[in-house]
């Protein structure tokens, strides 16, 4: 029996069971893949790098490359500087990327390797060819989570590359958050539809959602180019989508280059997408979005109103990375659904405050918790059942044990397809989320209906 979760909730301080987060470097690796011709480099032992690559591959169903400093016992004792130096040498000679994005692991953090000085020395000694870049982020996993790692690497892109020399104040920067390539692609499409020139970074579309071409490219065509990242320093505004993943980058660009920034929730659902579109309209000076977009919005509204009867009052358990969960909470509430457990593994009281604010008066009926895990969530559900679970693949154990409908959302999704192709962002994304929620609930109605109530038309 896979269900080994006791009903009684006890205080646990020393133990994490069935985590709702993972470690920083994987987020940093993912962000790095969103730079054109960038090789992520894991400064540590080869195990971490191998795990991160495998995990990303399981979610994106794409090859993921990253190099590693391959620490051995010597490096662990005497420091990993020489390994990094040799790595850079090998990387530029053989793989020849435009950028190497170095992130640390718990091991190199604990040893305390000074990455900038190794990189500086390598540059002086000609190991890093002219016109090539090495950036780095510190990503100790004993602080924060995968989201923190993503955020740190985005900040590193700005700290190392952004400048005020190029670019134009007509551009708007969008940091899309720790989201799938389909969402990054959707942001670009919407910017195009709204007729604004934008720089989306990082951007993993055309890197981790590649068509089959019959050949394997180590550096695919996608990714934000270095030139684009450099230009971000002159843009008129940065929109940071998701406070946890993207605020640090926006703030850093403001202090470095004076570009103002605005933090929005991920544009998941109608309201959050409205906010995003409004922010863009403020820049372009247009009064309304183009007709095509108004129609998209109308279609979501149509779906929401048609099906509201099936949604109203439904209790939901929601977990995952904080930005995703915050945005989804808002979307659910807007449809009359009732999030009753809202959980993230990432630490941060800010998460709890934000979700409680969205819930408003209803917050007393909902348990909101950061730094939590799925074992805890399972215990909550055992004590008070829900109608729907929304979250990444790891929720399937709870869904099965408690026989509760389950919609997959967030990272990672290891056991279904679709997230690689269809966005969750924007009005179109809202349609996709909504259809999967509604269809999942309807499948359950069909499954459980007694013969006489089993209906053709629903």
């Amino acid at each position, binding site marked *: 029996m896979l269900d080994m979760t006791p009903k009684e909730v006890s205080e646990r301080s020393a133990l994490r069971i069935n*985590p709702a987060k993972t470690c920083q470097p994987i987020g940093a690796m993912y962000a790095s893949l969103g730079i054109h011709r960038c090789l992520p480099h894991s400064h540590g032992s080869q*195990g971490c790098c191998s795990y991160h690559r495998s995990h990303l591959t399981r979610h994106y169903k794409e090859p993921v490359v990253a190099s*590693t400093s*391959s620490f051995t016992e010597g490096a*662990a004792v005497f420091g990993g500087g020489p390994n990094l130096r*040799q790595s850079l040498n090998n990387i530029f000679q053989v793989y020849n990327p435009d950028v190497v994005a170095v992130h640390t692991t718990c091991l190199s953090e604990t040893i305390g390797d000074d990455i900038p000085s190794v990189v500086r020395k390598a540059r002086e000694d000609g190991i890093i060819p002219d016109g090539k870049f090495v950036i780095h982020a510190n990503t100790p996993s004993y602080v924060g989570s995968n989201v923190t790692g993503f955020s740190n690497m985005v900040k590193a892109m700005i700290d190392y590359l952004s400048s005020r020399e190029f670019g134009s104040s007509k551009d708007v920067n969008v940091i899309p958050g720790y989201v799938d390539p389909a969402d990054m692609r959707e942001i670009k499409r919407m910017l195009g539809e709204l007729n604004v020139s934008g720089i989306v970074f990082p951007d993993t579309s055309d890197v981790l959602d590649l068509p089959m071409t019959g050949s394997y490219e180590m550096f695919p065509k996608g990714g934000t180019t270095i030139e684009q990242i450099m230009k971000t320093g002159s843009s008129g505004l940065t929109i940071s989508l998701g406070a946890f993943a993207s605020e640090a980058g926006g703030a850093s660009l403001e202090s470095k280059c004076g570009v103002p920034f605005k933090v929005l929730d991920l544009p998941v659902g109608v309201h959050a997408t409205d906010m995003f579109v409004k922010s863009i309209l403020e820049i372009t000076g247009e009064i309304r979005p183009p007709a095509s977009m108004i129609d998209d919005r109308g279609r979501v509204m149509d779906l929401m109103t048609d099906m509201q009867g099936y949604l109203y009052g439904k209790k939901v358990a929601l977990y995952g990375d904080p930005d995703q969960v915050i945005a989804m909470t808002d979307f659910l509430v807007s449809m009359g659904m009732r999030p009753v457990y809202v959980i993230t593994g990432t630490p941060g009281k800010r998460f709890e405050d934000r979700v409680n604010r969205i819930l408003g008066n209803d917050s007393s009926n909902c348990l909101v918790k950061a730094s939590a895990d799925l074992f805890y969530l399972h215990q909550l559900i055992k004590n008070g059942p829900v109608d729907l679970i929304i979250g990444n693949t790891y929720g399937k154990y709870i869904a099965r044990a408690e026989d509760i409908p389950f919609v997959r959302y967030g990272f990672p999704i290891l056991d279904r397809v679709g997230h690689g192709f269809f966005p969750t962002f924007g009005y179109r994304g809202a349609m996709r989320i909504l259809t999967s929620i509604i269809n999942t609930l309807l499948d359950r109605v069909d499954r459980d209906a007694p013969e006489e109530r089993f209906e053709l038309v629903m």
Partner: protein
Amino acid sequence: MGSTIFEERDRQIHRKGDEPFSMDCDMPSLAGAVSQRACVFCGSRVVLYPIADALHLVHGPIGCAAYTWDIRGALSSGPELHRLSFSTDLQEKDVIFGGEKKLYQALIELINRHSPKGAFVYSTCIVGIIGDDLGAVCRRVSEETGIPVIPVQSEGFKGNKRAGYNAACKALFELVGTGVIDDISPVSINILGDFNLAGEIWIIREYFERMGVQVVANITGDGRIDDIKRSHGASLNVVQCSGSTIDLAIMMERQYGIPFMRVSYFGVEDMAESLYRVANFFSDGDTDIMDRTRELVRNELAQLYPLLEKYRKDLMGKKAAIYVGGAFKAFSLVKAFRLIGMDVALVGSQTGTEEDYRELYDITDPGTIIVDDSNPLELSSFLQEKDVDIFVGGVKERPIAYKLGVGFCDHNHERKEALEGFVGMLNFAREVHSTVMSPVWRFSPRRISQHSSYELSLKAV
């Protein structure tokens, strides 16, 4: 190939026919390489994970535990405690002040709640650096709870996966010799090095039982602590797979005088040969065992061969590439492909030894590429050069194959079909057949030349 190969890697790649054979291996990956290799912890976790009634606690930051949460299809016929993810989730303050107290609390809480038969505590890189005394904490908890609590010294930087196998074997060896062995038959074995992926050890156990051999302990597929404790009562250790549990067999031979033999359950020849060798071992005391074994093999083959034939007809002359974790698996795969009429164009492993590669060299055809510790660029250039029809590998290799438009078979821990035993050979043939013969490759660019000008125009883009 040119620039896709590190110069330094030349000595880890051999093309049969280049002569004379020599290869460097068991070397740490080059710093900066996109290696497909994993770490010590990974090796230990892979070996010990299938012990289903044990508690597996990862002492370290969250990632090491998160990535090894239920990713292996090592099936259990009973308890499933191994499928939960337990971690001490070390935080910054633990890194500064040490994590021993946290570890102690976590163990006590878990043992109280789940009453496991034993516990394994995995050390990760960081624990090796901050210097927690894992041994002391484990001893204390063991005394207080009365169950074996065993530290696994699997700090990632202390080598590659093979070192992790060794650490796991040392941990297992602490259990061996602590159980009661009264009721064990003289015709008895332990099965070592099978992890019950997709239920494979059940197939193998059943063969042995039909032969009249008692299986004392599964090490470690569908494994149980109590069985392992009394595994020193068996007369023979039957060890599959090159690296993972051989060290345990050697330790048990030294300490308890239990001989071991290396076998493979993959492919018809190797499977039959393995059973015969075990039968032969016991034939002095059990004069009928050989007959029973022959009978078993005959029955199985009589069922299998006609079924294989239809796959063989389709697959004749198609080309395969193999890149797996351990070299031993690669031997069997080479033979298995031959049995279904296919040619092996590339064979490699993450952790083979010089001896392993020499053996591969001996059993492969001229022109075959033999490679140690490869990377995606190399692999993809070889696959294209050899124009193979199927690639056998693990999770990181799968999307490379698919991007190239090449069929794929997972022979690693994500496999869904049992591939061992006689029935496994049939499953293997079926799986290979279904991916090689699938019509979807017709749309892949490398096959497009046989199609319309419209399709050709797509290729040009």
